[in-house]
């Protein structure tokens, strides 16, 4: 399945990625599994997604938790806790 990922704020800046299209095996996928997969790319990816920093995630513009299921065509986003207002 194909998904689109966006990164924001500290994640975007540190990973030097703002968006990417990703092809994943056609098997059940969750936010946690996706983070673990991306974390294998390098130490900095591991630190950013599975380290001490809190990471929040959205699927199709809705905040979700680690157990949320990801489906073909989804827009996934990773970002730090929000600090607007």
């Amino acid at each position: 399945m194909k998904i689109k990922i966006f990164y924001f704020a500290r994640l975007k800046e540190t990973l030097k990625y703002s968006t990417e299209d990703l092809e994943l095996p056609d098997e059940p996928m969750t936010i946690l599994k996706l983070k673990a997969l991306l974390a294998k790319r390098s130490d900095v990816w591991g630190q950013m997604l599975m380290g001490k920093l809190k990471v929040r995630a959205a699927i199709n513009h809705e905040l979700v938790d680690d157990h949320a299921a990801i489906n073909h065509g989804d827009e996934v986003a990773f970002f730090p806790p929000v600090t607007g207002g």
Partner: protein
Amino acid sequence: MTVRVQTEDFDAGFEISRLHKNRKDIGAVVSFIGLVRDLNDGDAVSQLTLEHYPGMTEKSLTSIINQAMARWSIKDALIIHRVGTLQPSDQIVLVAVSGAHRGEAFAACEFMMDYLKTEAPFWKKEVTPQGEHWVEAKSADDAARERWIK
């Protein structure tokens, strides 16, 4: 209902007046303006940059207004949030609510700010004498939001 994300400044008085002007069923308008301070958590702040998640931001703010309208008997509400580069004393956000009675308007306005602070995808980066840094989320903001869950 109005939701806007914009780089330009806003006229708070004009926006607030749109919630009640020529309406005879509004008894109370509560509004909140958030501004850039030159001191945040002990750091001198000379500049602030606000990043957001286009598309999700608007949905998130609309959802916050819908939740407030489902929970309280209010008539109208608006959220305007700026993004881009701001200086101390600049306006960041306007949240305003109109209704028949003040108690519900106060609650709805504070609820909307507490949710915006913890759910709307905005991120602040500050410029200080020590350099640039991303603002850390505050546990006080999470606690403020928790108050509404019951």
